[in-house]
Each structure stands twice: as C-alpha cells, then as structure tokens.
C-alpha cells in the first residue's frame, strides 16, 4: 500500500474502524440464493449523527471538536495541523522537513526539556505519538481523563515555544535516516512504490516521499524546520479533537485557558500543483535479487474529497463494491474463477487537499505471467465498463459502509482519528456526521460513470501508471 502516514514510532492502535479513511475491509458481491433476510436500513441509522460531536472555535482560530464517551475513564487528545510534507518548499534541495519537525517537536520547548514530553505522558499512565502525511500532521495522547487540561497546556506550549538544541537536531536527523532505512531502503517493495508514486504524481507535491529522498534528508537543517514551523503551526491552522471521558463545556473551557494563549497568526494558502494529462504510457519495471514474489501495481489519478465530495463517496462505494472482500468481483473473477491471481485489491485514497488516487495491487499465481495477469484484468475491466457495475453490488457496498459507521463508536481513539483526518483535508463536521445519509444517496449509475471515466481500460480520462516488481531474471530460470 502507499505509505500514507509515517509516524514517530510504531503505531499499533490504528486498527480501529475508519469509515472516512477509506481503509476498511470486507464487502458484498452479486446476488446468490440467500437464506438470511437483511434487516432494513432504518431511517434512524441514516439520519442519526455518527458521532454526535460538538464543536467550538477559539478567538485565535483554533477549532475544537469533542466526542463525549464515558465508557472508560480515559480519552484521546489530538491536535491536527492542516499541513504536511506537500507544503514544504519545492526544489530547494532538501525534503522531509515536515516529518523532521514532527520528531523535533518532542525535543523541548519553553516548559519542557528534550524528551520530557513523552516521559511526562508515560508517568501519568498515558501513551503518546505523532504522525505526518502529505496534507496533515497530528500529535496525540491517550490518557486518564483527569489530566486533559495539563496535556492541553503542554501541547499549547510546544505550538508556540519550540526550542531545540543543535545536538538534538544532529542526532534526530540520524534517527529519521534510520527510519527511512527501516521503512524504505531495506524493503524493495517500498522502494518501488516510492518510485511508482513519484512517476504517477508528476508535477505534484505528492510525488515526494513524506520522509524525504535519501540524498536530501542529510541536508535538512534547523532553518528548514523552523521556517516551516513558524509558517504553518498556527492555531488557525489547527484542529483540536478530544474523544472520550470529558464534558464538552470543560474541554472548551480548558482549551481557552491553554490554547487560547497562543497568538493568532495567519497562514499562507496551500498550493497543490496538479498532474498534467499524460499521453505517454508509463510503465516501471524493477527486478531485484531479494524479490521472490512478482507483483503488479496500477495507479490512477482521480478526484479527491477536496475536489469533488460526491465523487469521493462514489469512489468509496466503487472500491467497496468491486474489492471489498473475498466475495466481490475482482477476487471472485481473478482469484477464484480464473486462477490468474493469488490476491487482488483496488483501493481509493481520496483524503487529500490535492488530487486523489486509486491503486490496484495483484500477485499472479506461479504459472501466470505478468502479461497474462494484466490482460485478464483488462478483460474484466472491459466487462465492467458500460453496465457491469451491478445494482446488487452497489447496494451491498452501501449497506456495509453505513454499518461501518456504527462500529466507529466502539472505540475511543478511533473517532478522533476519523474526524481529525477528515477535517484536516477540508471536510465539515456534517460531512462526517451524515456520512450514512450521503452514502445512501449514491446511485449505481454514478458509480458506473466513475468507473467508465477513470477505469475504462480503452480510453481512461488519465492513463494509469503500471508497475511490475519482478525477481531477477536469472533466478526465474
């Protein structure tokens, strides 16, 4: 998968339900004799708010969102900056400043010495971490609820008082380079994805890896990080999300007392240059000694949430309908019936301020060549074009997406994650709360049209990029 988020250390809680994130599993297929009667979608499920979140905005522009949930005496506090690696200056010879800053935010401020932030959180029985994406950067703490105000004070402090020693910049730069080695340089699949993405997002800031290019990371200096911090880390460019055991009024009051002290500051407009229409077919092939399992990848540039909300929901339904689990069309055709693939998936990444993308991944069976696999996928896509997206598949996909929203409340950190991410790329709270109602409105025809425009193998709106990851020839023989 395209590495959408990279974080300061291993995240292990992000398996919570994420309906807006598009990262869900399992879905329904074409009709067969069924013995179960499906419960009807009630109006209740469609009209009720998913999270019942409440919101307020401070004078300095900080938006506050609170999801009350008192099942355990804990909460998750997240601050989302609506800025990511795509906002770094381009062409200045360095990359990875957004992510480097995320690391350095733990290296001291007016109130705290280097490393003290995380230690304090641990000492109150909490966990903390942070992550950076192309369009947003988030810091979070899961803590016993009585410490909320104290944690707000700490987070507000580093929003305006970051103070880093030179020696910490030196050592932390080595840490992020080790992070890159672990995530990317040690892994041929990740290296290939990085190059594929870079080719596909020609002229877009999404072409650059969040963590930075290997040769540009060592050149990151204090000024790169600080100028990014001073430009973008403003309360008016941030969203505070608190989910868990807290009353809305208390959260707002404490936020005023803490974050309210951070001076208002305006931020520049985000620019996202777009991918030009490309008429040349783009194919990348990488053969590597370490690779034993060939893999096919295809990527298409498509509209994101920010560009077209209705299309965003349509793409969520489309990918769910065609590839939402083992009973759906792609798996059933390529893996079960034709035995050309051992796995196949189609996923949508539309949570972006700029353009979104669709990604197809497939692994051939041992006796299938990559040419055959590609051919079979093309045959299937040709079948789907025109009238091949079935009503049944669409309706089931919608039901599933709507059901997922009901699972979303069975978590404390999950709702903060879902809401923060959606707001960070330009959604409104209502877009999230009424997601089931909006999903329900999507029609089969809309989904079909999206497929026909973007995934039509003969005349797609934008040619996909195709990647073949292969074992070294000598090993295949």
């Amino acid at each position, binding site marked *: 998968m395209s590495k959408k988020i990279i974080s300061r250390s291993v995240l292990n809680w992000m398996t919570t339900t994420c309906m807006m994130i598009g990262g869900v599993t399992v879905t329904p297929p074409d009709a067969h004799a069924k013995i179960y009667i499906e419960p009807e979608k009630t109006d209740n499920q469609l009209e009720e708010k998913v999270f019942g979140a409440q919101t307020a905005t401070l004078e300095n522009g900080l938006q506050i969102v609170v999801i009350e949930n008192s099942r355990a005496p804990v909460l998750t506090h997240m601050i989302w900056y609506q800025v990511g690696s795509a906002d770094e200056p381009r062409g200045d010879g360095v990359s990875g400043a957004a992510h480097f800053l995320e690391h350095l935010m733990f290296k001291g401020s007016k109130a705290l010495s280097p490393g003290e932030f995380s230690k304090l959180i641990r000492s*109150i029985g909490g966990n903390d971490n942070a992550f950076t994406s192309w369009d947003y950067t988030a810091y979070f703490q899961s803590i016993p609820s009585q410490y909320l105000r104290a944690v707000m004070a700490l987070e507000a402090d580093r929003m305006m008082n970051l103070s880093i020693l030179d020696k910490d910049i030196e050592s932390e730069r080595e840490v992020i380079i080790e992070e890159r080695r672990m995530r990317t340089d040690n892994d041929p699949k990740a290296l290939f994805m990085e190059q594929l993405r870079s080719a596909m997002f020609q002229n877009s800031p999404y072409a650059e890896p969040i963590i930075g290019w290997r040769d540009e990371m060592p050149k990151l200096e204090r000024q790169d990080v600080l100028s990014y911090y001073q430009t973008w880390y403003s309360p008016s460019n941030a969203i505070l999300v608190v989910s868990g055991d807290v009353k809305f009024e208390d959260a707002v009051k404490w936020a005023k007392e803490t974050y309210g002290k951070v001076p208002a500051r305006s931020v520049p407009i985000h620019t996202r240059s777009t991918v030009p229409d490309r008429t040349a077919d783009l194919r990348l092939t990488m053969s590597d000694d370490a690779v034993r399992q060939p893999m096919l990848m295809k990527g298409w540039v498509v509209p994101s949430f920010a560009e077209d909300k209705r299309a965003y929901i349509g793409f969520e339904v489309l990918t769910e309908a065609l590839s939402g689990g083992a009973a759906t069309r792609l798996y059933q055709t390529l893996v079960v019936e034709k035995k050309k693939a051992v796995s196949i998936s189609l996923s949508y990444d539309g949570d972006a301020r700029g353009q979104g993308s669709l990604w197809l991944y497939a*692994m051939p069976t041992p006796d299938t060549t990559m040419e055959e696999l590609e051919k079979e996928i093309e045959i299937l896509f040709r079948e789907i074009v025109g009238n091949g997206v079935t009503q049944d598949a669409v309706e089931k996909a919608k039901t599933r997406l709507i059901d997922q929203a009901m699972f979303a409340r069975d978590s404390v950190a999950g709702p903060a994650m879902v809401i923060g991410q959606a707001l960070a790329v330009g959604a409104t709270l209502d877009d999230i709360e009424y997601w089931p109602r909006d999903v329900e409105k999507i029609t089969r025809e809309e989904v079909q049209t999206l497929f026909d425009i973007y995934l039509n193998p003969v005349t797609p709106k934008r040619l996909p990029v195709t990647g073949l990851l292969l074992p070294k020839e000598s090993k295949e023989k």
Partner: protein
Amino acid sequence: MKKHILGFLLLGVMIAPASGQASVLDIQSVTSEKGIAAWLVEDKTVPVLSLQFAFLGAGAINDPDGKQGVSQLLSNTLDEGAGDFDAKEFQEALNDNSISLSFSSSRDNFSGSLKTLNKYQDTAFELLSMALSSPRFEDEAIERMKQANMARIRSNMSDPEWLAARLSNTVLFENHAYARNSGGTLSSLPKITAQDLEEKRSKQFAKDNLIVAVSGNITAEDLKIYLDQVFANLPETAELKTLEQVPQPEGSQIVQHKLPVPQTVVEIAYPGLSRMDEDYFAAEVMNYIFGGAGFGSRLTETVREQNGLTYGIYSGMQDMKYADLYSIGTSTRSEKVAEVLNLIEKETMKIKSTKVTAKELQDAKSYLLGSVPLSLTSTDKIASVMLSFQSRNLPEDYLDIREHEIKKVTPDDIKRAANRILQNDKKTILLVGAAIEQDNQSEAIRYIETLPDIE
C-alpha cells in the same frame, strides 16, 4: 497482512500491560445450560458485540510432523464454505451482514474472533457455528489458500524483520516444535490435505480446551443460548500431545544470517521468567524502565535519543506455554551494529549492578497501573484482554492482584530480577543484515546461510 516492526516483541509487550483497576473490568462468569463457560463484560453503550475464543494447545505445536502450516491453513479455510454454503456464499453471508469473523493460530493455541452489530448477531453466531462444526474443506478453497500462503511467504522473503523472526525461531528453539514455522513452508503447504484439516478440527477442538471471552451489548441470558448453539456439540476432550519445556541455552552465542541490506535487524534474547515466578512483577517493572517503555526507557534514551543510532529499540517479555523469553530488538545501519551492541551491554550492566532511582520506579508504576484502562476502550480489546487472562489460567481479579504486587516492587527486587534474566552465559545475539566488523575480544559469529523452514 499486518507487518509490525519487531512483531514478536510487540506481542509480548502488548500482552504484559493489562493491569490495575479491576473496577474498570466488571467480569461476569457465565455458564450455559450445557456447561459452556465464558467471561462476559456487558456494555450497553454500543450496538456491538465481540466474542473471542481459543482452543488451548491446538496451535501449530500440534500440527502433524512434516506438515507445518496445518493450523494456519485451517484458520484460512474454516470460513471458506460450511454447512449449506459454498465458499462464496459463506463469504457473502459475512459481508452482507458486516460480520467480522476470523481465525488464527499461534504456536500454542488456535483462536477465533467474531465482531458484529447486534442487529446481525443471530446470523453471526449461526455462521460461526457452521464454520466450527461443518466446514466443507473443498479442494478449490484449500488450493487457493495454499497459493495465498505461499505467495505470502515468498513476499516476506524480502523482509529482513520476517527473516529475523525465522532466524530467532531456529536458533532459540532448535529441536523443539516451537522452531517450526507456524505459517507453513513452501514445501510443507502443498502436502496438506483436506483430511489433515478435518483431523485437526475434529480432534483438537473440544470443550476441555475451550476458553471464551465476550464483551458488548449482550446479556448473560442471551449469551448462554448462543454459547450452546456454537460450542455445545464439540467433543468433550481434545486429543493433544504435550511437549517438553524448551531447554535453557548452554552458553552465549552470536548468530547471523547475512543479507545485503543497508540496515541490520538486531535481536538479543534471554530466557524469561514464568508468570508464576515470584519475581515476575519485579521483572515487569524492570522491563519497563530498561526498554519496555519505548520513549523514556533507558535503551531508547541511550541508543536513539543520545546517539541517533536507531529509529526504535524495545524490550519485552514473552510468555508461552513451553518457554519464557526476554528479548531486546532494534535495527541500525550495518556499520553501527557493534556500537549499538556495546551501548546495550553497558545499559545491561548498569541495571544489573545499580538500583533504579526512586523517580524511575514511581514513574514506571504509575504507567504500568495507570495505563490499564487504555487497553479497555473497545469491545474487542476487552474481550482480548480477558482471553489472554484465561489462556494463562489467571483469575478474574488478576488486575487487582497485579496492582497489589506491582505496588510492592522495590529497587532491590528490580535489581534481582535483572540479574536473574540478563545472564551473560544465556544470551543469544541474532543479526540479519550485512557482514559487520568485530573487535578481537568479541565472540565469533556463527553464520546461518540458509534459514530452515521457509522453502
């Protein structure tokens, strides 16, 4: 499939911190009419239900010789057609009702997990019941899952962390059944037949090795009916072989699998302490201060924060039925491996020879006790914590016991635990990465060219 850095270390780390504040976990002991027992935490605030269960001892250790991967393949095929449903119909029934049903197998146990909205719970339990009692094991599905597993193995063969896990299996467990690859090998998977799967299912899934944990919006009375529906027809007794404990290492060693990658995966392993050991809780606190905390731990402070030599360094305890392990895991650019090993050695000496400070102890206890509710924030997390207690035969009030015991731990206890665990002559260093320079005093590296139990 999910990939964790230092996957097996995290497992240990994640199991350990369940603790304190039993009031948060209000466990009811439920027994159905036909005698099926379960632990239940009722939660009416969500329209959701999570059930987790395990058949103890029915994991990979009880796969037939020469057929590594039977448990894995069984976990993949139980939901590929059962009762009246063929594979596609079964998957459709799950998908159409937004039911998450999955099976998995560890070295020791075979387990299952069901998560459903209340409105689909009748269907969910019926499907689970069918999967356990009448799976079809059709050739097509078995072959498809074999191919998927072989593709997974081939795909993992370019992953240094996965290779490191294979190396540690081989070296730490040698001739014990734990050394096998639970996920199967490229040559063992093709040998597995429908009969192997059925044999395992019919003989190793029984009432006497079953544990069940449930959390969510369901009453004890309703649960009892479902328990009987799903589990009451199981045989009374499982046919399982028991194994010898993994023997203690005879000496220290350093073993490497050479791989041309820029970063070397490093693991240092020692025998651990059993959960029944009187120093277990002292060891838990020791581990937190030493490397378990991640940020703030001594190892992270030294190796990452002060020297920038790694992205992550963790330590953790892993308790299995036939072995207890203590391990430290990290990764660093290959030319710095010796330096990282030296730094870890210095910290090891320090925690064995000097008492931890009062502040370190206080902070560790605060975290270990205070963070318990964080692991109880969803129905599946709660069910999973309960199942981990049951699988270790811990009582329902284990969190209270743990809290009481952790509060009592002193700096002397920690020093003693450190000395019992971190013994030089029982240390195994495992490396996957490029060849490294060693100084003259260092122990000679033993190289393993071809890792067993992959091909």
